[in-house]
């Protein structure tokens, strides 16, 4: 291969890479440019009118946030607990293989199938009805593998010497984990988990069948209430609304708020992670 051909190929590779960067940039630009004019205090804090054609999206924001909180409350203890078992206790036995197989399988289940599952078990079988509870439980099942994988990675990053030193001083296994492992890995576990949960906040398919209300201009009173949610609200406004063509600003505004919420969660998590990575270095 001569030098010119080589340079040409290198250039082509760079071109493709930056074409992708450009496409991503354009998507963000398009949503921000068209969504920003719609953003104002009334849009954020107001209640929707005329089935969402006017007014604000406050109930949808509250709905999505309550789903995020619910999902965290269920999935974080289970996911982190599972990760501690896998990183600190598990031996190379059949049980370990089974759990790993389950995690990989769970990670690959399509989101709409989680929706069907949530409908079958939480909404109908447990009798929760379409509610924040049913939706949070469904989303929690969905993010569980992400949380376990992220948390296990963070636990394994703690040097082995920390464990040996603690055990050598006579600590029990749990004392060792509580005093010598968790303080150093907790931040990593939580930020990794938030990254996964941020993604769940933008999911539509699982909540479509388990929580989301088409138009419900009031706030939820309990976890057994139905709520509006930003992703579903955007879907309805863009495809099902009779005035879809005339309310583009409402759609773009909703899209931008959802995007900011999801990217904000991710960005926050990444910033915290870099902060702690600098703090603990060994």
């Amino acid at each position: 291969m001569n030098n010119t051909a080589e340079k040409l190929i290198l250039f082509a590779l760079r071109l493709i890479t930056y074409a992708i960067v450009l496409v991503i940039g354009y998507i963000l630009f398009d949503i921000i440019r068209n969504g920003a004019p719609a953003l104002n205090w009334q849009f954020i804090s107001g209640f929707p009118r005329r089935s969402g054609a006017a007014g604000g999206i406050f109930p949808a924001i509250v709905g999505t946030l309550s789903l995020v909180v619910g999902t965290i409350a269920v999935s974080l203890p289970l996911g982190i607990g599972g990760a501690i078992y896998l990183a600190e206790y598990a031996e190379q036995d059949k049980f370990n293989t089974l759990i790993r197989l389950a995690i990989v399988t769970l990670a690959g289940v399509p989101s709409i199938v989680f929706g069907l599952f949530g409908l079958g078990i939480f909404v109908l079988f447990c009798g929760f009805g379409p509610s924040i509870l049913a939706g949070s439980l469904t989303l929690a099942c969905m993010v569980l593998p992400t949380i376990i994988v992220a948390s296990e990675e963070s636990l394994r990053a703690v040097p082995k010497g920390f464990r040996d030193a603690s055990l050598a001083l006579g600590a029990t296994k749990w004392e060792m984990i509580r005093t010598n492992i968790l303080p150093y890995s907790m931040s990593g576990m939580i930020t990794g988990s938030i990254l996964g949960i941020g993604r769940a906040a933008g999911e539509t398919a699982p909540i479509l069948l388990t929580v989301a209300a088409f138009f419900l201009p009031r706030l939820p009173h309990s976890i057994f209430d139905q709520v509006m949610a930003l992703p579903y609200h955007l879907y309805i406004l863009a495809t099902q609304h009779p005035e879809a063509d005339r309310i583009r600003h409402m759609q773009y505004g909703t899209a931008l708020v959802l995007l900011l919420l999801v990217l904000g969660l991710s960005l926050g998590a990444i910033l915290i992670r870099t902060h702690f990575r600098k703090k603990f270095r060994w």
Partner: protein
Amino acid sequence: MSEKRDMSRSRKLFITDKLMRLLLVGAASTSVLVVCLIFLFLFREAGPFALNPGLGKLLDSQWIPVSFQEEHFGVGPLLAGSALVTALAMLVTVPISVLVSIYIAEIAHPTEREFLKPFIEILASIPSVVLGFFGLLVVAPLIKTTFGLSTGLTALTGALLLSLMAIPTIISLSEDALVSVPYALKNASLALGASHLQTIFRVTLPAALPGIVAAVMLGIGRVIGETMAVLMVTGNSAILTASPLSSVRTMTATIAAEMGEVPFGSVHYQALFWIGIILLVITFFLNIIAQRVLKKYGMMK
């Protein structure tokens, strides 16, 4: 006296230790439990369909779930819709992702890499409904005018959006595979006089191939299971077609669009759960095969 207190303290520690272990085993078992429950509840809701009207109904050539004459629950056209959209998406995604991952892993300057990786990660965190919305307002009109069609809601539009979703997944996984190729291999090639590019394409890429294959399979799994974007932009007509420019309906979109309107427990409702089972089985096997490939070539992290 103090000996006694020591005894009770150590007993307390011992019990806490056992208890925590038990709790953690319980937490770890949750994933196994959830997987079992998913299979159980999907079959529980779908079940009666197997007796009446019988699973043979799923092999009909048409999907007409609501009709005054005879309903048809043939999943064939939906399976074909999913297959067409997925195949088109992978046709676009695989070459782009592999080339970009080569650039990021082997060519880009370290500071450039620090920028490129998180930027492409952003694409993965854009909610699919937002991408679908973008597709509806920007990509669909583009397809419509480019090909002179009456509507831009086609299999191709869906495929383009799906490839946007699969690109970050496949790039990041195949980049991992490229980076994990031992330096000794690359250095040996360079020492024998091969150029940088020759080393990449003849040594690094073949060595990373199993990892890239696994990445592609995981990407396919993700694309087949994606719902919102295809629901919004593929036009949703359940017909058998091989044309990228006609509108199609995928399995996922069918569930999402019709589940809201069916009476619980009806035959139609059960048929939608069967589609869910088919999706679950497909993604399950894609996942297992990808893991096998990774394990066989020792690329498991």
